[in-house]
């Protein structure tokens, strides 16, 4: 927040954020908050019976962390679009690293806007957990 239009540069973004190790408690707290109680994220027997080695994170948890990472930078009121694609699953014990960068800076409808490219990376494997995009207005 407090980011000025002039300080935004295409190809650049805020300091990365790293979280983890993720725990089953993180998954359960998110599930309780979101209302998505799919047992595959907290019921070990259910997850194994579906062929997984253990429970795994809710995609929307890492999407939620990534979204708040963006609004911490550009302001909660300024988001106009936020889109994610889920890639690799995220497992208990994983650390995640969140990054964002401006890919386009422009004016539209009398508003200054930036389009962002977003990434959540699994630190241990290096694989992408989320690839995302966002659009913010810059007052």
């Amino acid at each position, binding site marked *: 927040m407090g980011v000025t239009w002039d300080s935004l540069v295409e190809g650049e973004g805020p300091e990365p954020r790293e979280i983890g190790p993720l725990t089953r408690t993180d998954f359960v707290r*998110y599930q309780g908050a979101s*209302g998505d109680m799919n047992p595959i994220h907290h019921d070990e027997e259910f997850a194994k019976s579906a062929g*997984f080695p253990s429970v795994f994170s809710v995609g929307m948890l890492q999407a939620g962390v990534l979204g708040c990472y963006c*609004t911490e930078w550009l302001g*909660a009121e300024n988001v106009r679009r936020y889109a994610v694609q889920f890639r690799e699953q995220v497992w208990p014990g994983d650390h995640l690293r969140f990054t964002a960068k401006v890919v386009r800076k422009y004016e539209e409808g009398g508003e200054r806007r930036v389009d962002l490219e977003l990434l959540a990376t699994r630190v241990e494997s290096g694989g992408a957990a989320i690839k995302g995009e966002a659009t913010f207005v810059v007052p």
Partner: protein
Amino acid sequence: MVDKSKVGLTDEPTEMPIERGKIREFAIACMSRNPEYVENKTPVVEPTFLTTANFWMSAGTSPLAQVGMDLKRLLHGGQEYVFHGVPPRAGTELTMQTRVDKIYEKEGKRGGTMTFVETVTEFRDPDGKLVAEARSTAIETGQAPTEAK
């Protein structure tokens, strides 16, 4: 088993009040460091907050539930939120309506044929103005994954 005849299925408009406590709870669950969600007395919602619409939909009768996807083979492929202005604030009474927008298949690298189901939820304010839209892509894999890591 996905029922492709459900494309176009739309539920009844349902209320979704936007509540400050829920925004705070959601911010904590999303490990937010943004004080705007907890210090502001009428905070706007987080970018993914509208997923909590789950609490206001009647379980089992939502359009997605009626498509009949298998939970053990269900993956969340993607999610998009569009806000037509400042995101809704605590205290706003939204009305939402969900439709099954598309159902299609793709061949997966593992796990056989994957079936994609895209649903769209529209959120309107008390004046009927469209304030936000959510598009969700759910994927049913052809078989239970045996190698996940």
